[in-house]
């Protein structure tokens, strides 16, 4: 097959943003189609180059094919939408029922998160795994907060190690999503500014005491409401087909939920904190998108240089 056709298939592959198994099947099917078409065109007397050009014209735009195939595969079932929304709903329930300080229920939630992540990774990362994967960062955050309560010497000894492990875990988790689709990385990290917003509203200096618990009790219904809103956003995302609609859902609901946090925090979230979180929310979309662009360009260059397409 000519380089032009291989490059065409590569353009489709990079626009698909599907799981590795689905991606392989789609490309393999199109490759067989191209080989059939080339053979028939050459039988009519066309040269290899002419046949490749005609084949491309008959197939149509690589970008359009990739987009349409993405739309054919992207929509999840209602069951998958519920599974994806489940971690948010679980945390929502913990706060709605005021079970957030029950060791038993927190342990059950963490076990459920670990089980879902393990199962999802084993089932070659379906779309619903990514919100769960995001919550797998939560134990890392909890350990970080606990470290702040260590004696000063121990704190300075453990903090570099903690940062190394935390950054490694964050990098791995985000990379898992980025490999598939940068939009899934944004989806995965969407709760982060919301959770940080509530933490800042409860205890801006992270020194949790008996007054913090009283404040969490006070805010619990509103925290539950924000998790419910996150769950609904994620369910809508999974059910939508078009990529631009998915992006719009995240870009609209993220700031809305953050505004909701600021409103229900009753002045405990400062304007500066709100603005920084708002910017962080923007970064959740901009950074993965830019990184994805750079990674794809680099991959394309490497493949063009080495001539490895398959």
């Amino acid at each position, binding site marked *: 097959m000519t380089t032009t056709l291989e490059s065409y298939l590569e353009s489709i592959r990079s626009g698909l943003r599907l799981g590795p198994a689905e991606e392989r099947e*789609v490309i393999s099917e199109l490759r067989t189609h191209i080989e059939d*078409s080339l053979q028939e065109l050459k039988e009519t007397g066309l040269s290899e180059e002419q046949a490749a050009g005609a084949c491309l014209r008959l197939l149509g735009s*690589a970008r*359009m094919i990739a987009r*349409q195939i993405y*739309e054919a595969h992207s929509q999840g079932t209602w069951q998958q939408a519920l599974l994806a929304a489940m971690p948010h709903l679980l945390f929502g329930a913990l706060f709605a029922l005021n079970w957030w300080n029950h060791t038993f229920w927190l342990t059950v939630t963490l076990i459920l998160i670990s089980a879902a992540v393990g199962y999802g990774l084993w089932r070659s990362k379906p779309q619903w795994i990514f919100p769960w994967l995001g919550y797998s960062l939560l134990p890392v955050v909890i350990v970080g907060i606990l470290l702040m309560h260590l004696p000063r010497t121990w704190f300075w000894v453990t903090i570099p190690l903690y940062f190394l492990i935390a950054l490694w875990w964050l990098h791995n988790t985000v990379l898992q999503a980025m490999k598939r689709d940068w939009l899934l990385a944004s989806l995965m990290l969407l709760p982060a500014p919301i959770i940080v917003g509530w933490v800042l509203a409860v205890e801006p200096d992270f020194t949790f005491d008996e007054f913090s618990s009283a404040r969490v009790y006070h805010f619990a219904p509103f925290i539950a409401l924000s998790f419910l809103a996150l769950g609904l956003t994620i369910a809508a995302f999974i059910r939508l087909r078009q990529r631009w609609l998915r992006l719009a859902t995240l870009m609209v609901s993220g700031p809305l939920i953050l505004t909701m946090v600021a409103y229900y925090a009753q002045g405990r979230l400062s304007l500066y904190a709100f603005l920084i979180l708002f910017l962080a929310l923007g970064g959740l979309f901009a950074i993965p998108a830019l990184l994805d662009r750079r990674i794809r360009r680099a991959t394309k260059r490497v493949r063009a240089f080495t001539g490895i397409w398959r």
Partner: protein
Amino acid sequence: MVRRGELIKGSLDSLLLGLLEHQPMYGYQIIRELKRKSQGYFEFKEGTLYPALHRLEKSGMVSGTWQLLPNGRQRRYYTLTAKGLARLADERSQWRDFLTAMNPFMQPAD
């Protein structure tokens, strides 16, 4: 006036279901058959066939299976499912009703 491209786009699912009713087929074969049976009327960008086939497969109307050819290549054959057959029967009935309703207006006056 509706353009031919729009007409084909709107009828592609029905065309595919009708074509696969008789035998399992692979993508390239489907394109050739559509062209042959419609005497060239149904000619469209070949790449748009696969999203349509995948959409039908996702909704359970057709099922796709890989077959290994003697030369080592693989082809994906699509077969109509019971759900697809029921949908085809439904579309045929709608098409007949549409034709019956349109005929008095579109037949040339005697």
